């Protein structure tokens, strides 16, 4: 099998039907599994009991811009903080992951010399679904 390389340029992120490619510098969907360990007479035994997925997004702030992503996230958090937003994350053509996340309010501000950035860590409700084709 030939070596396959996919990069951040292959990523596509959509939250609540809005594309984030124009502002996002990083997106990572990851799972923190809870695994209980038992010491038995036969040695260690492991039991996978829970999963908590997180969608981490790093992006350039765009407050005040037409179609602002930061303002859309703020509005979602302010108006319906317990209503999930649909997320579609394409790792590469043929590998699409969908999930639902709770709204997260963007941070505001930054350091003087650089671009204002926003770090978001969305809590995923349930587990993501995948479409491999």
């Amino acid at each position, binding site marked *: 099998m030939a070596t396959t390389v996919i990069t*951040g*340029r*292959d*990523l*596509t*992120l959509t939250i609540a039907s809005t594309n*984030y*490619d*124009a*502002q*996002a*510098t*990083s*997106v990572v969907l990851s799972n923190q599994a809870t695994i209980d360990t038992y010491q038995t007479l036969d040695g260690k035994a492991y039991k996978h009991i829970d999963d908590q997925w997180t969608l981490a997004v790093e992006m*350039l702030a765009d407050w005040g811009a037409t179609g602002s992503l930061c303002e859309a996230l703020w509005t979602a958090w302010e108006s319906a903080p317990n209503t999930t937003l649909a997320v579609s994350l394409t790792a590469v053509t043929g590998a699409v992951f969908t999930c639902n996340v709770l709204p997260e309010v963007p941070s505001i501000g930054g350091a003087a*010399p*650089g*671009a204002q950035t926003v770090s978001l860590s969305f809590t995923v409700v349930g587990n993501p679904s995948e479409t491999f084709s």
Partner: protein
Amino acid sequence: MPASTILSSVRQPLATAFASVAANVYDHVPEFPPNPFLAVVPNDPYMEIDLIGKTNVKVKLNYIITCGVQNADSAAALDNLEQLIISILAAIPSGYEIGTVSQPRLLNVGNGESLSSEIVVTTRYTQTN
């Protein structure tokens, strides 16, 4: 909509923003800049890709604004250069990250000598069409 260019979308607008600065302004490396001058020239690395996706070509552009004044008198030259740098910093439009200003140094161009400094700026560009 015509295809965008870095020249028309970034370098020329940046140079135009310096219309109020008392200097000869260039959006490229001039052959023989008369003092006082400022020129928008590419930094190294010039272009960086730091956004996800490839539907559009989006790059982070790094520039150096090289500025210089006549170096006939050292004390006056440094004062003039400082005033020129401050006026440039005030005229840089929003959307540009401003880095550091380099130590003044002598720059020989043609038969003349300038006291010059470099201001590091960064912005983002999205190719359309």
